[in-house]
């Protein structure tokens, strides 16, 4: 009797749950099929650095494509930014119906090592617009194992944003060097009124700013390769973290935080540092061109201006060559159609439009001819820096190492401990040195 009841009870639960499962299968099959009977094709694209404005621009370009390619539908998936890369990893591992995926400089190694994204040579070689690609674009495409795993949509080359009105009032010149930033920042800092000199980034990815300082102190020539910015040209995996100049740069980095930045900024990430500047808390900010749009919309024109990335004692201004782009998944069901859309998205007209709307540096050399936006106004400064290649240089962390993924999650913590005086400069540098010496030993020379 008892067991029968228990059995009946379990059966009820099963029945109830299976109805749910039944429902779900029903709706699923209609919404998820990539190709229905009429031969229509759906291309699914996932973005990582999502913002509502950017999604709208992508949608616009996708609509244009649909217009001229009847039967093709482009779906854009936009996970919330905070969890996007974790989620994209899951999607790719499960080989969900994804054709085009946003590949960032920081996720390229992972996606390519796991063979989730496909080599694009066979499409790029036949592309009629490949010749107008800029040198940086071509280099970025070949970052991993000299293979085209992505077509970049733009570059995030950094520059100084500063409060023109505050500088004028204090009789200061626009900053040119890191030292200028410190000196001007010191004058403009007034903690009791919640005004500070510099939007320091101590939170996620703050180490990138310390790295640019190291490079600006030692100069790019000292590096083994600008794409492996932690190793010196001495070879054998010797890292830059044992160099006395790097220690000097680290001290300067800390003084920027202690003397001219809000205490809160030890935890600041992208949003807080930009908000600090736009909201009138800080006088200077070093950021990507993306911020131009934010500043234009929330500040008055006479309140802010931009100058090129600051130089260090070596005379060089070394900034990270940040980029992101689109890749084609290796398991796409319609690789040819997807690639066709990928090239459409990356053609000079659309990329220039996208770059303007989203304020990145475009990938085609004829962008400035196409749209004067890139030769006048704030963007002109990037053209100027390209004319002085001996001063304005680029380097990047050794992102091709698998160890980089672990590094990325631990390094911010170490820097924060240093900035809060929990560990000493020597302890931090020793940790950095050991980490990358170890990585070299485990993975060898990868550049």
């Amino acid at each position, binding site marked *: 009797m008892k067991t029968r009841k228990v059995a009946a009870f379990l059966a009820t639960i099963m029945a109830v749950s299976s109805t749910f499962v039944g429902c779900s299968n029903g709706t699923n099959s209609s919404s998820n099929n990539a190709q229905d009977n009429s031969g229509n094709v759906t291309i699914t694209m996932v973005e990582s650095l999502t913002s509502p404005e950017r999604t709208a621009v992508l949608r616009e370009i996708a609509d244009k494509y649909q217009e001229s390619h009847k039967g093709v539908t482009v779906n854009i998936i936009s996970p919330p930014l905070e969890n996007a890369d974790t989620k994209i990893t899951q999607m790719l591992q499960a080989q969900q119906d994804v054709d085009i995926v946003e590949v960032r400089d920081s996720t390229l190694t992972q996606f390519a090592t796991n063979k989730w994204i496909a080599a694009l040579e066979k499409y790029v070689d036949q592309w009629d617009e490949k010749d107008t690609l800029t040198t940086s674009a071509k280099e970025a495409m070949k970052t991993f194992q000299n293979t085209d795993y992505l077509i970049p949509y733009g570059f995030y080359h950094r520059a100084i944003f500063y409060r023109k009105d505050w500088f004028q009032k204090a009789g200061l010149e626009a900053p040119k060097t890191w030292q200028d930033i410190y000196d001007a920042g010191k004058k403009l800092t007034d903690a009791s009124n919640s005004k500070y000199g510099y939007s320091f980034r101590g939170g996620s990815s703050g180490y990138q700013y310390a790295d640019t300082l190291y490079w600006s102190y030692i100069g790019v020539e000292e590096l083994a390769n600008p794409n492996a910015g932690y190793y010196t040209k001495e070879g054998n995996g010797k890292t830059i973290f044992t160099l006395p100049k790097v220690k000097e740069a680290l001290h300067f980095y800390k003084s920027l935080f202690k003397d001219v930045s809000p205490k809160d900024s030890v935890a600041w990430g992208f949003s807080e540092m930009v908000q600090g500047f736009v909201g009138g808390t800080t006088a200077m900010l070093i950021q990507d061109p993306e911020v131009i749009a934010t500043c234009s919309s929330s500040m008055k024109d006479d309140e802010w201006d931009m100058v090129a990335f600051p130089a260090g004692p070596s005379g060089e201004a070394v900034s990270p060559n940040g980029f992101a782009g689109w890749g084609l998944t290796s398991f796409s069901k319609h690789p040819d159609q997807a690639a066709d859309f990928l090239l459409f998205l990356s053609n000079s007209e659309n990329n220039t439009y996208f770059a303007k709307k989203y304020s990145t540096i475009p990938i085609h050399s004829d962008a400035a001819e196409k749209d004067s936006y890139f030769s006048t106004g704030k963007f002109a400064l990037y053209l100027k820096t390209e004319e002085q290649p001996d001063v304005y240089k680029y380097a990047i962390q050794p992102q091709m190492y698998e160890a980089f993924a672990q590094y990325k999650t631990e390094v911010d913590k170490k820097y924060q401990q240093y900035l809060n005086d*929990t560990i000493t400069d020597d302890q931090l540098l020793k940790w950095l040195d050991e980490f990358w010496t170890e990585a070299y030993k485990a993975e060898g020379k990868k550049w």
Partner: protein
Amino acid sequence: MAFQSYNLVNINNIKWIGFDNFTNLFSGSEQDDFKLALWNTVKWVFISLAFQFLIGFALALLLKKKFHGSAVYQGLIFFPWAVSGFLIGIMWRWMFNGTSGVINDILIRMGILDQPFGFLANTSTSLASVIVANIWYGIPFFTIMITAALRGVAPELYEAADVDGANVFIKFFKITVPSIKSVLMLTVLLRVIWIFNFPDLIYSMTNGGPGGSSNIITSLMMQKVQSLDYGAASAIGLLCILFLSVYTIIYLLFTKFTDSEE
């Protein structure tokens, strides 16, 4: 997965590594972070719990006797409980904001601070700040549970005690506490497990920072997931389950033991 090198950075490199993920936590490269997180977890759970419990209990006692508007009052103070951990975190992060946060503003106006202070950005205050938010969040749970339990205590018991001339304290310790003891025990038990498994607040307020100073082991685990190191994350997850199981068994044995004493 806890016994594998399971990192989605390179899926070709997934392999069995025995207890390496665990030894890493206790004596290897992760030990400093892990020990700090472990100690923080103890503080996070017990300080949060103590205040939630005491304030929740006090409120329940005050609300026991209905007064004019007590139903409305009760409705209002239960609000925090209806909000998600993520949103609570966001709200408090905004209020604790170190440059234009309202808490800074209030403290400055009261003359306690003379310039804004980055509560969430300082290693010595970040954990305390998230605990404050957690206490705020958890009080209603105790108030609801204890109020419910108090209403269940037979009024005859108090009447009898009044006849005997017992004072407030005697009534409290001889009648109130024993009658609702089992509720208190169960609530505390459940609550410890929930607080332990509640990294949402920390995630949205500080993400464990700065420098890991506000990490508890469950938020450390979330970071491992975000860096795609599922091996390490699973190892931590397994440890969490182990800790909680041991805690529950000890707790249950202990409470059974005191029960049978009576």
